[in-house]
Protein backbone atom coordinates (compact mmCIF):
# COMPACT_ATOMS: atom_id res chain seq x y z
CA UNK A 1 0.00 0.00 0.00
CA UNK A 2 2.87 2.32 0.71
CA UNK A 3 4.06 1.93 -2.87
CA UNK A 4 0.60 2.69 -4.26
CA UNK A 5 0.48 5.86 -2.19
CA UNK A 6 3.89 6.88 -3.48
CA UNK A 7 2.75 6.33 -7.04
CA UNK A 8 -0.34 8.42 -6.37
CA UNK A 9 1.80 11.36 -5.40
CA UNK A 10 4.41 10.94 -8.11
CA UNK A 11 2.33 10.50 -11.24
CA UNK A 12 2.82 14.03 -12.45
CA UNK A 13 4.46 13.76 -15.86
CA UNK A 14 2.47 14.91 -18.89
CA UNK A 15 2.03 11.48 -20.48
CA UNK A 16 0.83 9.85 -17.27
CA UNK A 17 -1.51 12.72 -16.50
CA UNK A 18 -3.03 12.68 -19.99
CA UNK A 19 -3.48 8.91 -19.79
CA UNK A 20 -5.16 9.10 -16.40
CA UNK A 21 -7.43 11.85 -17.71
CA UNK A 22 -8.64 9.48 -20.41
CA UNK A 23 -9.45 6.83 -17.84
CA UNK A 24 -11.29 9.39 -15.71
CA UNK A 25 -13.32 10.62 -18.67
CA UNK A 26 -14.34 7.08 -19.58
CA UNK A 27 -14.85 5.56 -16.14
CA UNK A 28 -15.30 8.41 -13.66
CA UNK A 29 -12.77 9.91 -11.28
CA UNK A 30 -12.70 7.22 -8.58
CA UNK A 31 -12.67 4.14 -10.81
CA UNK A 32 -10.47 5.68 -13.48
CA UNK A 33 -7.76 6.85 -11.10
CA UNK A 34 -7.80 3.62 -9.12
CA UNK A 35 -7.53 1.51 -12.26
CA UNK A 36 -4.67 3.65 -13.58
CA UNK A 37 -2.68 3.18 -10.39
CA UNK A 38 -3.52 -0.51 -10.30
CA UNK A 39 -2.14 -1.05 -13.80
CA UNK A 40 0.98 1.02 -13.10
CA UNK A 41 1.55 -1.05 -10.00
CA UNK A 42 1.13 -4.28 -11.97
CA UNK A 43 3.70 -3.00 -14.46
CA UNK A 44 6.09 -2.02 -11.69
CA UNK A 45 6.18 1.59 -12.88
CA UNK A 46 5.74 4.89 -11.10
CA UNK A 47 4.81 6.69 -14.27
CA UNK A 48 4.64 6.31 -18.04
CA UNK A 49 7.98 7.55 -19.29
CA UNK A 50 7.69 6.69 -22.99
CA UNK A 51 5.29 5.72 -25.74
CA UNK A 52 6.37 2.10 -25.27
CA UNK A 53 5.29 2.36 -21.61
CA UNK A 54 1.97 3.73 -22.80
CA UNK A 55 1.60 0.85 -25.25
CA UNK A 56 2.24 -1.71 -22.49
CA UNK A 57 -0.22 0.13 -20.23
CA UNK A 58 -2.82 0.10 -23.03
CA UNK A 59 -2.31 -3.63 -23.61
CA UNK A 60 -3.04 -4.23 -19.92
CA UNK A 61 -6.29 -2.28 -20.23
CA UNK A 62 -7.32 -4.17 -23.36
CA UNK A 63 -7.33 -7.47 -21.45
CA UNK A 64 -9.98 -6.07 -19.05
CA UNK A 65 -12.82 -5.91 -21.62
CA UNK A 66 -15.76 -3.48 -21.76
CA UNK A 67 -15.23 0.28 -21.52
CA UNK A 68 -11.72 -0.25 -20.12
CA UNK A 69 -10.77 -2.19 -23.24
CA UNK A 70 -12.12 0.69 -25.33
CA UNK A 71 -9.84 3.20 -23.56
CA UNK A 72 -6.97 0.75 -23.94
CA UNK A 73 -7.50 0.49 -27.68
CA UNK A 74 -7.56 4.29 -28.06
CA UNK A 75 -4.37 4.64 -26.03
CA UNK A 76 -2.73 1.86 -27.99
CA UNK A 77 -3.39 3.60 -31.31
CA UNK A 78 -2.16 6.88 -29.84
CA UNK A 79 1.09 5.21 -28.73
CA UNK A 80 1.60 3.47 -32.09
CA UNK A 81 1.06 6.75 -33.98
CA UNK A 82 3.84 8.23 -31.87
CA UNK A 83 6.34 5.52 -32.63
CA UNK A 84 5.75 2.85 -29.98
CA UNK A 85 6.59 -0.67 -31.12
CA UNK A 86 5.22 -4.03 -30.00
CA UNK A 87 8.06 -6.04 -28.48
Amino acid sequence: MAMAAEILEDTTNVLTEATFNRLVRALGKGTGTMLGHEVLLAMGLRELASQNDLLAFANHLITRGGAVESVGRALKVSALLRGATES
Partner: protein
Amino acid sequence: MSILVSDYRKCVELSERVAWRVEDVVPPGSTFDFTKPFMPNAMFFGDGIAFLSPHERLRLNQIFGNSYGYLFYFVEAYIIDMAMRHATAELYGDEHALRAMLRFAEEEVKHQQLFLRFGEIFNSQFGTSCDLVDSPQAVASFILSKTPMAVVLVTLHLEIITQTHYVDSMRESKQLEPLFVSLFRNHWVEEAQHAKLDALELIKLRRDADDAMVQRAITDYFAIAEAFAGLLASQAKLDVTSLERAVQRTFSEEERTEIEAAQRRAYHRAFLYDGVTNPQFLEFLAEHFPGALEGVQAAAQAFA
Protein backbone atom coordinates in the same frame (compact mmCIF):
# COMPACT_ATOMS: atom_id res chain seq x y z
CA MET B 1 0.05 33.56 -41.82
CA SER B 2 -0.19 30.12 -43.37
CA ILE B 3 -3.57 28.89 -44.59
CA LEU B 4 -2.78 25.73 -42.63
CA VAL B 5 -3.08 27.48 -39.27
CA SER B 6 -6.34 26.49 -37.60
CA ASP B 7 -7.80 24.47 -34.75
CA TYR B 8 -10.03 21.40 -34.63
CA ARG B 9 -13.19 23.24 -33.59
CA LYS B 10 -12.84 25.78 -36.40
CA CYS B 11 -12.24 23.02 -38.95
CA VAL B 12 -15.51 21.33 -37.95
CA GLU B 13 -17.41 24.65 -38.15
CA LEU B 14 -16.05 25.40 -41.63
CA SER B 15 -16.61 21.84 -42.74
CA GLU B 16 -20.28 22.03 -41.72
CA ARG B 17 -20.66 25.30 -43.60
CA VAL B 18 -19.30 23.99 -46.91
CA ALA B 19 -20.62 20.40 -46.76
CA TRP B 20 -22.45 18.94 -49.76
CA ARG B 21 -24.23 15.73 -50.77
CA VAL B 22 -23.08 13.45 -53.59
CA GLU B 23 -26.62 13.58 -55.05
CA ASP B 24 -26.41 17.38 -55.28
CA VAL B 25 -23.04 17.42 -57.01
CA VAL B 26 -23.80 14.54 -59.39
CA PRO B 27 -27.61 14.29 -59.62
CA PRO B 28 -29.17 11.23 -61.27
CA GLY B 29 -29.10 11.62 -65.04
CA SER B 30 -25.95 13.78 -65.03
CA THR B 31 -24.06 13.89 -68.32
CA PHE B 32 -20.65 15.06 -69.46
CA ASP B 33 -20.15 17.30 -72.48
CA PHE B 34 -17.56 15.33 -74.46
CA THR B 35 -17.04 18.21 -76.89
CA LYS B 36 -15.07 19.92 -74.09
CA PRO B 37 -11.71 19.10 -72.47
CA PHE B 38 -11.70 17.92 -68.85
CA MET B 39 -8.19 18.90 -67.81
CA PRO B 40 -6.78 22.44 -67.98
CA ASN B 41 -4.08 23.28 -70.53
CA ALA B 42 -1.60 23.97 -67.74
CA MET B 43 -1.85 20.35 -66.58
CA PHE B 44 -2.08 18.54 -69.92
CA PHE B 45 0.86 17.98 -72.30
CA GLY B 46 -0.97 16.12 -75.07
CA ASP B 47 -1.55 19.33 -77.01
CA GLY B 48 2.14 19.32 -77.91
CA ILE B 49 1.96 15.94 -79.68
CA ALA B 50 2.11 16.89 -83.37
CA PHE B 51 0.92 13.60 -84.88
CA LEU B 52 -2.38 13.63 -82.94
CA SER B 53 -5.41 15.32 -84.51
CA PRO B 54 -7.37 17.87 -82.45
CA HIS B 55 -10.04 15.21 -81.83
CA GLU B 56 -7.42 12.68 -80.66
CA ARG B 57 -5.89 15.26 -78.31
CA LEU B 58 -9.32 15.97 -76.88
CA ARG B 59 -9.89 12.25 -76.27
CA LEU B 60 -6.49 11.95 -74.57
CA ASN B 61 -7.35 14.93 -72.39
CA GLN B 62 -10.62 13.24 -71.36
CA ILE B 63 -8.84 9.95 -70.66
CA PHE B 64 -6.47 11.93 -68.43
CA GLY B 65 -9.48 13.52 -66.67
CA ASN B 66 -10.97 10.10 -65.99
CA SER B 67 -7.69 8.76 -64.57
CA TYR B 68 -7.13 11.96 -62.57
CA GLY B 69 -10.49 11.50 -60.80
CA TYR B 70 -9.88 7.79 -60.33
CA LEU B 71 -6.47 8.41 -58.75
CA PHE B 72 -8.12 10.52 -56.05
CA TYR B 73 -10.54 7.64 -55.41
CA PHE B 74 -7.50 5.40 -55.29
CA VAL B 75 -5.50 7.36 -52.70
CA GLU B 76 -8.54 8.05 -50.54
CA ALA B 77 -8.58 4.35 -49.62
CA TYR B 78 -5.55 4.81 -47.37
CA ILE B 79 -6.59 8.30 -46.21
CA ILE B 80 -9.83 6.91 -44.74
CA ASP B 81 -7.84 4.31 -42.81
CA MET B 82 -5.41 6.99 -41.61
CA ALA B 83 -8.18 9.37 -40.49
CA MET B 84 -9.95 6.54 -38.61
CA ARG B 85 -6.73 5.69 -36.74
CA HIS B 86 -6.22 9.31 -35.74
CA ALA B 87 -9.88 9.55 -34.63
CA THR B 88 -9.55 6.37 -32.55
CA ALA B 89 -6.48 7.83 -30.85
CA GLU B 90 -8.66 10.72 -29.61
CA LEU B 91 -11.38 8.57 -28.04
CA TYR B 92 -11.95 9.85 -24.47
CA GLY B 93 -9.37 12.54 -25.27
CA ASP B 94 -9.88 15.84 -27.12
CA GLU B 95 -13.50 15.73 -28.25
CA HIS B 96 -13.00 18.50 -30.85
CA ALA B 97 -10.15 16.55 -32.42
CA LEU B 98 -12.22 13.35 -32.28
CA ARG B 99 -15.16 15.00 -34.03
CA ALA B 100 -12.94 16.66 -36.63
CA MET B 101 -11.14 13.42 -37.49
CA LEU B 102 -14.38 11.40 -37.67
CA ARG B 103 -15.80 14.04 -39.99
CA PHE B 104 -12.59 13.91 -42.03
CA ALA B 105 -12.98 10.14 -42.44
CA GLU B 106 -16.66 10.41 -43.31
CA GLU B 107 -15.97 13.05 -45.95
CA GLU B 108 -13.25 10.94 -47.52
CA VAL B 109 -15.70 8.03 -47.83
CA LYS B 110 -18.11 10.47 -49.47
CA HIS B 111 -15.35 11.60 -51.87
CA GLN B 112 -14.72 7.99 -52.83
CA GLN B 113 -18.44 7.60 -53.60
CA LEU B 114 -18.31 10.82 -55.62
CA PHE B 115 -15.38 9.59 -57.71
CA LEU B 116 -16.99 6.18 -58.19
CA ARG B 117 -20.13 7.91 -59.46
CA PHE B 118 -17.97 10.06 -61.73
CA GLY B 119 -16.28 6.94 -63.11
CA GLU B 120 -19.61 5.23 -63.76
CA ILE B 121 -20.95 8.21 -65.70
CA PHE B 122 -17.70 8.60 -67.64
CA ASN B 123 -17.61 4.91 -68.59
CA SER B 124 -21.24 4.87 -69.68
CA GLN B 125 -20.83 7.92 -71.94
CA PHE B 126 -17.24 7.96 -73.22
CA GLY B 127 -17.89 5.21 -75.74
CA THR B 128 -14.92 2.92 -75.10
CA SER B 129 -13.39 1.55 -71.92
CA CYS B 130 -10.39 3.17 -70.25
CA ASP B 131 -7.76 1.18 -68.36
CA LEU B 132 -6.89 2.16 -64.81
CA VAL B 133 -4.23 1.01 -62.36
CA ASP B 134 -5.65 -1.49 -59.90
CA SER B 135 -5.19 -2.62 -56.28
CA PRO B 136 -5.88 0.52 -54.23
CA GLN B 137 -5.84 -1.79 -51.20
CA ALA B 138 -2.31 -2.97 -51.95
CA VAL B 139 -1.12 0.60 -52.33
CA ALA B 140 -2.95 1.58 -49.13
CA SER B 141 -1.19 -1.26 -47.29
CA PHE B 142 2.20 -0.11 -48.59
CA ILE B 143 1.61 3.49 -47.53
CA LEU B 144 0.21 2.53 -44.12
CA SER B 145 3.25 0.33 -43.47
CA LYS B 146 5.33 3.52 -43.28
CA THR B 147 5.71 5.72 -40.19
CA PRO B 148 2.50 7.56 -39.21
CA MET B 149 4.12 10.98 -39.62
CA ALA B 150 5.16 10.14 -43.19
CA VAL B 151 1.63 8.95 -43.97
CA VAL B 152 0.13 12.26 -42.81
CA LEU B 153 2.84 14.23 -44.61
CA VAL B 154 1.94 12.52 -47.90
CA THR B 155 -1.73 13.21 -47.21
CA LEU B 156 -1.03 16.89 -46.60
CA HIS B 157 0.92 16.97 -49.88
CA LEU B 158 -2.02 15.43 -51.78
CA GLU B 159 -4.64 17.62 -50.17
CA ILE B 160 -2.70 20.76 -50.90
CA ILE B 161 -2.40 19.84 -54.60
CA THR B 162 -6.18 19.48 -54.94
CA GLN B 163 -6.39 23.14 -53.89
CA THR B 164 -3.59 24.18 -56.23
CA HIS B 165 -5.14 22.43 -59.21
CA TYR B 166 -8.62 23.79 -58.70
CA VAL B 167 -7.70 27.34 -57.70
CA ASP B 168 -4.82 27.89 -60.13
CA SER B 169 -5.95 25.93 -63.17
CA MET B 170 -9.63 24.94 -63.12
CA ARG B 171 -11.63 27.68 -61.41
CA GLU B 172 -11.24 30.42 -64.02
CA SER B 173 -11.13 28.14 -67.04
CA LYS B 174 -14.34 28.63 -69.05
CA GLN B 175 -13.67 26.05 -71.75
CA LEU B 176 -13.49 23.01 -69.43
CA GLU B 177 -16.29 20.47 -69.00
CA PRO B 178 -18.56 22.14 -66.37
CA LEU B 179 -19.65 19.06 -64.38
CA PHE B 180 -16.03 17.93 -64.08
CA VAL B 181 -15.00 21.37 -62.79
CA SER B 182 -17.93 21.43 -60.35
CA LEU B 183 -16.91 18.03 -59.03
CA PHE B 184 -13.40 19.28 -58.25
CA ARG B 185 -14.70 22.55 -56.78
CA ASN B 186 -16.72 20.54 -54.27
CA HIS B 187 -13.82 18.22 -53.62
CA TRP B 188 -11.52 21.20 -53.01
CA VAL B 189 -13.73 22.98 -50.46
CA GLU B 190 -13.69 19.96 -48.17
CA GLU B 191 -10.06 19.05 -48.80
CA ALA B 192 -9.11 22.57 -47.71
CA GLN B 193 -10.27 21.64 -44.18
CA HIS B 194 -8.56 18.26 -44.37
CA ALA B 195 -5.23 19.91 -45.16
CA LYS B 196 -5.57 21.95 -41.97
CA LEU B 197 -6.35 18.79 -39.98
CA ASP B 198 -3.31 17.07 -41.48
CA ALA B 199 -1.19 20.00 -40.34
CA LEU B 200 -2.65 19.86 -36.82
CA GLU B 201 -2.07 16.10 -36.56
CA LEU B 202 1.48 16.44 -37.88
CA ILE B 203 2.31 19.16 -35.37
CA LYS B 204 0.97 16.93 -32.59
CA LEU B 205 3.00 13.90 -33.69
CA ARG B 206 6.11 16.02 -34.35
CA ARG B 207 5.97 17.45 -30.82
CA ASP B 208 6.32 13.96 -29.32
CA ALA B 209 8.95 12.72 -31.78
CA ASP B 210 12.72 12.57 -31.42
CA ASP B 211 15.15 13.44 -34.24
CA ALA B 212 15.49 9.82 -35.39
CA MET B 213 11.72 9.48 -35.77
CA VAL B 214 11.53 12.71 -37.75
CA GLN B 215 14.34 11.57 -40.05
CA ARG B 216 12.63 8.23 -40.59
CA ALA B 217 9.37 10.02 -41.44
CA ILE B 218 11.18 12.13 -44.05
CA THR B 219 12.82 9.04 -45.57
CA ASP B 220 9.44 7.28 -45.66
CA TYR B 221 7.75 10.30 -47.25
CA PHE B 222 10.19 10.16 -50.18
CA ALA B 223 9.84 6.36 -50.42
CA ILE B 224 6.07 6.75 -50.78
CA ALA B 225 6.55 9.53 -53.37
CA GLU B 226 8.89 7.30 -55.37
CA ALA B 227 6.44 4.38 -55.27
CA PHE B 228 3.64 6.73 -56.30
CA ALA B 229 5.76 7.92 -59.25
CA GLY B 230 5.96 4.30 -60.43
CA LEU B 231 2.20 3.90 -60.14
CA LEU B 232 1.63 7.09 -62.14
CA ALA B 233 4.02 5.89 -64.84
CA SER B 234 1.95 2.69 -65.09
CA GLN B 235 -1.19 4.77 -65.54
CA ALA B 236 0.48 6.80 -68.31
CA LYS B 237 1.23 3.55 -70.18
CA LEU B 238 -2.37 2.40 -69.80
CA ASP B 239 -3.61 5.72 -71.20
CA VAL B 240 -1.93 4.99 -74.55
CA THR B 241 -3.93 1.77 -74.98
CA SER B 242 -7.10 3.56 -73.88
CA LEU B 243 -6.46 6.26 -76.52
CA GLU B 244 -5.89 3.67 -79.25
CA ARG B 245 -9.22 2.11 -78.34
CA ALA B 246 -11.00 5.48 -78.21
CA VAL B 247 -9.75 6.75 -81.57
CA GLN B 248 -9.57 3.32 -83.25
CA ARG B 249 -5.99 3.78 -84.35
CA THR B 250 -2.83 1.79 -83.66
CA PHE B 251 0.19 3.95 -82.91
CA SER B 252 3.76 3.12 -83.88
CA GLU B 253 6.24 2.33 -81.11
CA GLU B 254 7.72 5.86 -81.37
CA GLU B 255 4.27 7.41 -81.19
CA ARG B 256 3.32 5.28 -78.19
CA THR B 257 6.52 6.35 -76.45
CA GLU B 258 5.79 10.02 -77.08
CA ILE B 259 2.20 9.82 -75.82
CA GLU B 260 3.28 7.84 -72.77
CA ALA B 261 6.02 10.39 -71.97
CA ALA B 262 3.57 13.31 -72.22
CA GLN B 263 1.09 11.56 -69.94
CA ARG B 264 3.78 10.50 -67.45
CA ARG B 265 5.03 14.07 -67.24
CA ALA B 266 1.46 15.31 -66.72
CA TYR B 267 0.84 12.84 -63.86
CA HIS B 268 4.21 13.47 -62.24
CA ARG B 269 3.73 17.22 -62.38
CA ALA B 270 0.14 17.05 -61.11
CA PHE B 271 0.62 14.64 -58.23
CA LEU B 272 4.27 15.12 -57.25
CA TYR B 273 5.86 18.32 -58.60
CA ASP B 274 2.85 20.49 -57.69
CA GLY B 275 3.13 19.23 -54.10
CA VAL B 276 6.87 19.57 -53.57
CA THR B 277 6.87 23.09 -55.04
CA ASN B 278 3.75 24.37 -53.30
CA PRO B 279 4.62 27.44 -51.17
CA GLN B 280 2.31 26.42 -48.31
CA PHE B 281 3.73 22.92 -48.19
CA LEU B 282 7.29 24.25 -48.31
CA GLU B 283 6.51 26.76 -45.56
CA PHE B 284 5.11 23.96 -43.39
CA LEU B 285 8.16 21.76 -44.04
CA ALA B 286 10.54 24.63 -43.27
CA GLU B 287 8.89 25.15 -39.89
CA HIS B 288 8.33 21.55 -38.81
CA PHE B 289 10.45 19.27 -41.04
CA PRO B 290 13.39 21.39 -42.27
CA GLY B 291 15.36 18.21 -42.93
CA ALA B 292 13.02 17.46 -45.84
CA LEU B 293 13.76 20.65 -47.79
CA GLU B 294 16.83 19.34 -49.61
CA GLY B 295 14.92 16.25 -50.68
CA VAL B 296 11.95 18.19 -52.00
CA GLN B 297 14.26 20.30 -54.15
CA ALA B 298 15.65 17.13 -55.71
CA ALA B 299 12.13 15.73 -56.15
CA ALA B 300 11.01 18.96 -57.83
CA GLN B 301 13.82 18.56 -60.38
CA ALA B 302 13.02 14.89 -60.96
CA PHE B 303 9.30 15.43 -61.50
CA ALA B 304 9.34 18.77 -63.38
